[in-house]
């Protein structure tokens, strides 16, 4: 029996090994170095094996930095808003798109919304600066049309996090939608037919057939995204922020860029990376446990 299974499955095993090897070489081997470096005063010529050990000094240094509290708060705040919005919007959009019956319209919409995903933040930030500009931008022209004062989206600390979250969702929701659409197509059409015969309206069908059918994917995506609770998005913030919004926009990654790369303090940067990974792992483990408990959902 076992031998038979192996006979059937060996091509699959063969296919997964290159991926495992790649992961090991490029992701797990460097982890060893990163672990050491975070507790050392790293000297590139000596390498990770001969650099002097400094214990927890790098971590003490990070948390003694004057702005660290503000930076930590910003990171968690921006990242969690992005996680929530980045989860809800694609689900809603996928459900709506699923109700569109004209295939051409559906495909057109889908293509249009996932296009921004392929633009880099360097380009998008230029576009955003233009469309959010208080004097020339189209958004503020609309606001002025309603008789309101122009809003300084990119230089006002009250608005900046909102802009970050909205623009991030705008860029990524189309792409995330693909996954949920795929999940929807795997729902057995017989369920819809049965519900229709039972007299369920479109809304009820969405509520009692589509959503439960998507639930495992939703839970999985939520569990995975919780690992990003300290990833507020370096590239986006780095390209959009300015001195006036350090207060609400400076996050761990931008701070580390200034300290680690501009000032060449590699060990400090690594220590922050390790700290972020630990927190992320903690959240993934927790969310996975919760998913099992409340949604009876397991991967392994």
């Amino acid at each position, binding site marked *: 029996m076992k031998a038979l299974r192996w006979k059937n499955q060996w091509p699959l095993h063969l296919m997964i090994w290159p991926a495992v090897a790649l992961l090991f070489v490029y992701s797990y081997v460097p982890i060893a170095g990163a672990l050491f470096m975070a507790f050392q005063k790293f000297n*590139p010529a000596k390498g990770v094996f001969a650099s002097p050990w400094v214990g927890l000094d790098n971590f003490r240094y990070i948390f003694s930095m004057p702005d660290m509290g503000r930076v930590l708060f910003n990171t968690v705040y921006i990242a969690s808003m992005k996680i929530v919005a980045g989860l809800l919007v694609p689900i809603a959009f996928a459900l709506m798109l699923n109700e569109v019956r004209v295939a051409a319209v559906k495909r057109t919409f889908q293509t249009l919304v996932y296009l921004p995903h392929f633009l880099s933040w360097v380009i998008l930030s230029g576009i955003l600066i233009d469309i959010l500009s208080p004097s020339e931008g189209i958004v503020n022209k609309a606001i002025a049309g309603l008789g309101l004062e122009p809003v300084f989206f990119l230089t006002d600390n009250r608005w900046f996090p909102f802009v970050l979250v909205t623009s991030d969702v705008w860029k990524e929701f189309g792409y995330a939608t693909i996954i949920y659409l795929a999940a929807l197509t795997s729902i057995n059409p017989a369920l819809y037919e049965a519900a229709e015969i039972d007299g369920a309206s479109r809304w009820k069908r969405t509520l009692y057939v589509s959503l439960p059918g998507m639930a495992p994917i939703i839970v999985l995506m939520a569990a995975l995204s919780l690992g990003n609770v300290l990833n507020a998005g370096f590239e986006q913030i780095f390209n959009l922020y300015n001195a006036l919004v350090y207060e609400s926009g*400076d996050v761990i990654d931008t701070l580390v860029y200034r300290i680690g790369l501009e*000032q060449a303090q590699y060990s400090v940067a690594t220590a922050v990376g390790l700290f972020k990974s630990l927190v992320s792992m903690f959240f993934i483990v927790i969310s996975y446990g919760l998913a099992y408990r409340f949604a009876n959902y397991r991967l392994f």
Partner: protein
Amino acid sequence: MTKAKRTWIAALLVVALGTTAACSDGGGNKSEGQGEASASASQSPGQTGGDQSPDAQPEDIMAKYDPPIEISTGASVNPTVVWNPGESIDKNSVYDNYEQELGIRVKNKWAVDTSQYDAKVKITIASNDLPDFMYVQRADLDQLVKSDMVMDLTDLYEKYATPETKKFLTADGGAQLDSAKSDGKLMAIPRTDAPYVPAQILYIRNDWLKKLNLQAPKTMQDVLDISHAFATMDPDGNGKADTIGLSLQKEILASDSGLIGYFSSYHAYPGKWIKTASGQVEYGGIQPEVKTTLKRLQDMFKAGELDKEFMVKDSSKSAELLVSDKAGMVYGPFWMPSWPLQGGAVKDGKVVQDWGIYAVPSIDDKPALQPVDLGVTGYYVISKKAKHPEAVFKLLNRWVTALTRNDPTEDVAKYSQGSLKDKPQAYYTLNPVLVYNIGAQLYSGEMMPKAIKAKDPSMLNNENKINYENVMKFEAGDANQYGAYMAFKEGGSQPLLYEYFQEGRYLTNAYSGPPTATMADRWATLQAKEMEVFTKIITNGASVDEFDKYVEQWKTLGGAQITQEVNDWLQSH
């Protein structure tokens, strides 16, 4: 769960894991390339001159390698370079010339966009995988020396630098070359440059002045009045209040479209170390004059004389205001007429905007000084593992000859402008080793107007003969040479730098040593704080008294300690 669904999730998980894994090594980017590095380490790092035999007859230090050798470097790719068909950063006429003349094949171990170069260098250092030679910043040099990763160049310099090159590198009296020494040993080749390159000049639209019946500015008060008039009196005559006085960018202490010149009018020098009356060296950004200047800027911002959105604009975005007739004034270095001003001034082969070039005026009877640094923009280091370190000196010697030779050869065209004689945008940046003459701007500032007036290029050196030709082209009607014309004409931007020099209007940064211990820890934080507070005050987001709080904070956050360390360093050197 259906089987189909399970397979589906499994596939998704593989994708997700792949993505997280790819992200997770962003933090610790080393250990890559370790193997390669140790392989080349086994080669002897000796200083023998390649295929030459140093003990035989007196050696020709510029002899061609036969067969050709290869040396590696890291390239910074200037995004404005216009490539000829078939050319790239790895294969172009400059590299070809070096290979043909010297038998040196320059190989780029990596090539990144200019804006990412410094970060790439730091990653290269962290991974201990240096190319044979590369260009680094001051802080990197210190780290490389401390980590014992780069070669001591003292003997190589003595042996392989031509007398001409030595003269070139010590033209300032030796301070530039000394800055590359550590314990008396030469650890790098300084990329010398004239310290005057970033010095700011005030550019004002003369056609707007004429239209509003205003005089050229003599004092800073005149500048403020002009700015006010530009913002309120509709200088472009379109009936709309859509113009501002002064254009600036978010990096307020940048050389192009920054405010260094504006600050200097009030004798304030943020970003520089200055000698105070007490003889101590102090940081310019916390002096009381800065507060006065910020107050003026705040007034201008409130009056609508500054771009309401400068805080989010980099220099190219803020340049749009100048090009599109929205702003009539800007502070910038001598090369500003070429970029961005030419973009607005020249339309369809005609000059349509009239920019004036003015010395930065002072608010009182003391002249406004332009703060400048040592004039070394960075350093070329040679890896300990390099097999042909002397080849770097050959490249250097060749480049120096190309720059300074007086007889009419094609050198400048070959090495400075490549095969792109008619559109030489940034083409010189292809050279793997770039050094400049300390007095290049002063020389052309003094000589070019004379030559143009006398219509006689024979008094000029080779480099300036090409500039002369470009000015002649402009005078013959080729508006595309506007930048060259504005830089070299009488009263142009380079003659102005020479005028600053004659009048003693440069103020040298009092500290050009390595980052001190506390600086390495705190400088990034202090600079961020400075930008935040200055920008807030200028944009009227904070009262000008916030400056006093900032000064206190600056001192307690490490500034006082840094000041102490800077003074200690200066005492001991």
